[in-house]
């Protein structure tokens, strides 16, 4: 067990995977000499050389496309998309090529690649460098999707992703790279595809993922001061996702909210809220709430950026309403 950062945990996962399997290569913009836009791949080119740590021109479609071809022919590429916001450029290779090859070709040709990228707000990076676009990925059959919230998951979800026979998108959070936590390279928080209960509670269920897990935990602490015990479940993987722990939790508490940083309309939170409403209808004491980002592009002004996504305070207020029906001042 070591205390380290989310950034270092990702780097360690890449390093260990490359040591363990010579088929693992990295390809992306600035992954080599520069060491990654967020410093994640620092030093890897010195260790593994330019044939395995490939600095690519600014060509997102062909970076992802090259990774698809490499995966089809025996390598285990980790392509890096510097910002998830650039997915629009690469979406054909992701959604029409990587995702569909196994199926279209009758199971003959798998695409065991990982697309590493990062998203989210917190650095005043504005509208084209701050989005949470996981719903784009979740909507495409054939793509797996993981979003680590903790240091341990930053390591293990990437290692687990690299053991998958199908394309996996791993979306890190730019606001978490400097966060410290405990890494145990021998002990994942949960098996691949299983959510993790980050805080147990009997009164309500808060489902979150990525950085919102930490906001939810902060809100749960404040709720506890008011005598409300919230259960916080971290999804970790969005595909595959074992729904059972969510359903079981909600059937115990009768109250739930789903929290995302993404624009709430058409979001992952909407999908999970719909699933929970369908499967737990008879157990529900209150509607399943969705808390998400405002349906706006992300503004650059720090105060506006912060206000555009759910906060611990908002989660707290919504949680208190679910349990006590106390209407917060801003909603009255």
């Amino acid at each position, binding site marked *: 067990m070591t205390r380290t950062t989310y950034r270092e945990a990702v780097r360690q996962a890449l390093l260990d995977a490359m040591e363990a399997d010579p088929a693992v290569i990295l390809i992306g913009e600035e992954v080599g000499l520069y060491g990654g836009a967020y410093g994640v791949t620092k030093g890897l080119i010195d260790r593994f050389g330019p044939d395995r740590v490939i600095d690519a*021109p600014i060509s997102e479609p*062909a970076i992802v*496309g*090259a990774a698809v*071809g*490499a995966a089809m022919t*025996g390598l285990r590429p980790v392509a890096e998309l510097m910002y998830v916001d650039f997915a629009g450029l690469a979406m054909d290779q992701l959604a029409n090529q990587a995702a569909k090859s196994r*199926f279209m070709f009758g*199971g003959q040709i798998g695409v065991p690649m990982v697309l590493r990228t990062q998203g989210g707000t917190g650095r005043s990076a504005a509208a084209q460098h701050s989005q949470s676009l996981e719903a784009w990925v979740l909507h495409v059959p054939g793509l797996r999707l993981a979003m680590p919230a903790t240091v341990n998951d930053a390591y293990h979800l990437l290692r687990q992703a690299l053991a998958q*026979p199908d394309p996996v998108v791993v979306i890190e959070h730019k606001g978490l790279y400097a966060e410290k936590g405990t890494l145990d390279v021998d002990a994942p928080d949960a098996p691949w595809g299983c959510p993790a209960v980050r805080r147990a509670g009997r009164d309500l269920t808060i489902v979150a993922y990525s950085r919102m897990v930490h906001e939810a935990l902060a809100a749960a602490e404040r709720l506890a001061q008011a005598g409300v015990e919230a259960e916080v479940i971290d999804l970790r993987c969005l595909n595959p996702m074992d729904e059972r722990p969510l359903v079981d939790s909600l059937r115990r508490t009768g109250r739930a909210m789903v929290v995302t940083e993404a624009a709430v309309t058409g979001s992952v939170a909407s999908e999970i809220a719909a699933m929970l409403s369908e499967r737990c209808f008879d157990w529900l004491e209150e509607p399943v709430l969705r808390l998400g980002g405002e349906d706006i592009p992300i503004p650059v002004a720090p105060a506006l950026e912060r206000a555009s996504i759910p906060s611990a305070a908002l989660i707290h207020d919504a949680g208190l309403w679910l349990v006590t029906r106390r209407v917060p001042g801003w909603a009255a």
Partner: protein
Amino acid sequence: MTAAPNTAPLDRYRTMRRIRSFEERVGELFLKGESAGSMLHLSIGEEAVVGMTDAMRPGDTFTTHHRGHGIFIGRGGDPARMMAEIAGKADGYCGGKGGSMHIADRALGHLGANAIVGGGIPHVVGAGIAARNARSGALSVAFFGDGAMGQGILYEAMNMAALWRLPVIFCCINNQYGMGTRVDRSAGLPDFPGRARGFGLMAARADGAEVEAVHEAARDLAAAAREGRPGFLEIDAYRFHGHARMDKSPYRSPEEEAEGRRRDPLARARARLASAGMATPGDLDAIDAAAAAEMDAALAHAVAAEAPPLSAMFADVYAPGTPAPRPQAARLAAILSEGARA
């Protein structure tokens, strides 16, 4: 000691004839209402691509565009399994789930036909990286049409191939039309090899009516590419028929079509083989008859073959042994049966 007779040109004629016969039967399959896909793109007139496929070796890989039947036959594709796939049958190459535009065969190096224009092009860059890193000596060839010359990803891929000195060839089969748009209406300067040279690739244009000319250019480019000097080959051909089966080509004149069809690589090869004394008209007729019989059998096989079971739709979305998509009925059952409080 006399050199062994060069039978390769005759073999190439045979392959071209098999492609033409195959495509004619695909047309029949469609007219019978037996093709699964509503979209069929025939490569009649483009058979000289055999000059390129013949410059490849076992272990090489390739991707094709949506008009790729001929290319795959050139690389050894089994017409019966191809026809079955086009008909959407279980014993087709992809179990009847891909169809004409998504035929693939990993064993023969076919990494997949693609229905997104240019979609398969960057895959050869990745295959090239794999071959380079493994020092396997394998070549990877992207086949595409002139339509893909408008796609940015081609230029990204050509740049990468040149930058990283990959064993890759970009093969543009210029049949003069992207759907209904002639090259002179889609390219500011239709000098395609010139574009490739601008990226640092070796590049050539070959007459698509002359399979041996195509082969000569392809052989040189393949040899260089295997040494880390990637290349670009334009095969200058003519698409004899419409874009897809229902397209009667109202956007081009009968005179132009007649002129284009005079550039028939089969007729040219036949004449050259006969005049060079490499085959008698009888030999060539026998080749034609054998191809026709083979493709008749492929057609009959495809019509008679079984459709895939409904359960096949949930297979191969993800790898076996990993969580599969939940069928809608199972999802609803979880709500309708256990979704009520006891």
